[in-house]
C-alpha cells in the first residue's frame, strides 16, 4: 500500500502522494508531492517541481519543443502543455517500490503555474485501487 496524506497548507484539503520522477537525463528520481486529482485524465509536472530534475524550467520547456505539444482542457479554458518521457517511482509501506516508464505533461514556466502542485491523473491512478477519506485523513493507493 502506498500511503499519501491530506495537505492543508494551500488553503484547502489537497490529497497528495509522494511520487519519484525520472527522466532520460536524470535517472535518479526526484521525489515530489503530487495532488491526487480524480478529475484529471493526465498527470502534469509544474515548473517548481521540474527544478529537481537537473534542468532549468525554461531549458526543459525548450528541450521538449513544439513537437511535444499537447492540448488539454481545464475548466473553462484550453491550454498548451508539452509531453515528456519519464519514469514513475512510488514507494509502498514496507519498502517495496512500483516503477514504470511512461510520460508526463509539463506546464510552461509561467507565473500562472507558480505554487500549484504537480498533478497525478488517471493515466497513473488507473494502476491502483484508490481510497480517499478526508474524515480519517487517509489517502491510500493499493496495487491492482
Amino acid at each position, binding site marked *: 500500500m502506498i500511503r499519501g496524506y491530506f*495537505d492543508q*497548507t*494551500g*488553503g*484547502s484539503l*489537497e490529497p497528495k502522494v*509522494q511520487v*519519484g520522477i525520472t527522466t532520460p537525463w536524470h535517472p*535518479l*528520481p*526526484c*521525489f*515530489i*508531492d503530487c*495532488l491526487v*486529482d480524480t*478529475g*484529471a485524465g493526465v498527470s502534469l509536472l509544474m*515548473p*517548481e517541481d521540474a*527544478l*529537481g530534475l*537537473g534542468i*532549468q*524550467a*525554461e531549458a526543459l520547456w525548450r528541450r521538449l519543443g513544439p513537437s511535444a505539444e499537447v492540448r488539454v482542457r*481545464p*475548466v473553462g479554458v484550453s491550454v498548451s502543455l508539452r509531453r515528456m518521457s519519464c519514469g514513475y*517511482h512510488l*514507494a509502498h509501506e514496507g519498502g517495496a*517500490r512500483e516503477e514504470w516508464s511512461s510520460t508526463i505533461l509539463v506546464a510552461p*514556466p509561467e*507565473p500562472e503555474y*507558480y*505554487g*500549484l*502542485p504537480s*498533478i497525478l491523473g488517471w493515466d497513473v491512478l488507473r494502476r491502483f485501487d484508490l481510497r480517499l477519506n478526508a474524515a480519517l485523513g487517509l489517502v491510500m493507493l493499493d496495487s491492482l
Partner: protein
Amino acid sequence: MPANVEAAVEAARRRALDERAFWQRQYPDYLKRYPGQFVVVKGSEFLAAVPDLKALEALLAKWGLSRPDVMVRYMREPLPLLL
C-alpha cells in the same frame, strides 16, 4: 537495482519527506513574510526570496546551488484549488 543506487533513491525519498515536514511547519510564517515569492532555504537557513522562476534559477546558478541542495517553495496565496 544496484545497492548503491537503491541507497541513493531511498536517501532522495527521505530527503523529500524531511522537506515536506519542514514546509508544513514553516510555510505559514514564510507566507506572511514573502507572499507571491519563491523562498529558498538551505538546511533550515533562509537564503533568499525572489519573485519569479527566472530570477530563482539565475540566483541558484550564481551560487552554484541546485535542488536538492536547497529547498524551494513558492508562497501561494491560500485559496482553494479548482484545477
